[in-house]
């Protein structure tokens, strides 16, 4: 009886808040030098690896609250998708563990500090030659907490 009550309480009061995962979709090109101001740091870091990518533009930003253990598929461009699974909530080191499947990546697992973006430069290129870049950030869900 007490076990049933405990299970009922666990269902009603989950101990782990969902994690809000934000995915920024960026297209980089060598055809221009226009950089979105929000992407200044990203552009600088990418250019260290490929100096020919000079133009960076934001395509879309999507955020989704995902319970720990669940996953969500983010739509990118050209019918490309990014599947993200929240593997572990924020640990003692302040990292949230994610696993994902992205264009050119069968599986990627990593832990990253909250509120910080981790870039992924994918091998996908659009018809016009733009390179698809993703930046993923996770943080404990703060919806309703005015933050």
């Amino acid at each position, binding site marked *: 009886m007490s076990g049933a009550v405990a299970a009922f309480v666990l269902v009603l009061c989950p101990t782990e808040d969902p994690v809000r995962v934000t995915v920024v979709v960026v297209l980089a090109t*060598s055809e221009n030098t226009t950089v979105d101001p929000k992407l200044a740091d990203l552009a600088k870091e990418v250019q260290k690896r490929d100096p020919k990518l000079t133009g960076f533009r934001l395509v879309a930003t999507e955020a989704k609250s995902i319970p720990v253990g669940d996953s969500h598929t983010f739509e990118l461009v050209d019918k490309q998708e990014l599947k993200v699974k929240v593997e572990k909530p924020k640990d003692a080191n302040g990292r949230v563990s994610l696993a994902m499947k992205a264009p050119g990546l069968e599986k990627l697992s990593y832990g990253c500090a909250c509120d910080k973006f981790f870039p992924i430069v994918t091998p996908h290129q659009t018809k016009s030659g733009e390179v698809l870049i993703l930046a993923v950030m996770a943080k404990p869900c703060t919806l309703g907490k005015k933050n």
Partner: protein
Amino acid sequence: MTTPTPNPDDFPRGLLAAYVDGELDAEARATVEQWLAEHPEALDELQAQRELSPANAPLWERAEPPEPSEAEWAAVRRGIEDELGAPGRSPHRRWRAAAWAAAGLAAAGVAAAVAWVAFGPAAPPEGGGKPIVVAKAPEVAPHPREVAELAPAPRSVDPLAGFAVLPMATDDDVVLDRVPEFPAGWLPVGRHPLPGLMVLATEEEVLLSEVAPSSAWAAGGGPKMTTAPGDAPMIFAAKLR
């Protein structure tokens, strides 16, 4: 028809009419004729009786029917009322009158209830007899939420009937899941998922567990996390140009 001999001083006028209409036997007819001979002043009356004879029926039919006087109508009305109020009246008729009266009262009650529901005043506010305070339009446009609180519950079909100003959602009310990139200022409400400069994680803030390239990558190649002292790590899978 046998008719008594009329008194010359008080000759019955009905006998004279019967004489004119040819309804008397020979003896009575002779009596009348004798009386008329002795009373020539009655010839005028005889002429009047002849004018009223059934032989003149077509003439009477063309005449308008007599209208009852007010007194006659009153007499008829009194007779009907006496009949209805008579103590010996049938119990069945009294029960039927009572049923009609009860049905009339019930119909009036239902009509009054329907009118009260449709057009009656709204439920009184808490406090019973307190007068209803009508909100005055402020000189400065209030916050949309205040307007929503002041607005009465809509009673008509129009869903906007209760709003003087449409209440708009605030940034806290809206959760934006996906935002396509447009020039700044296009988003009317809500917080952009990427509100400011994108801050990249440092090498110390990222712990890579597993990287498995897709089958499209050649063995030994593929993406890997590239780092450099002081630089932000990233997965770089694009082919170099």
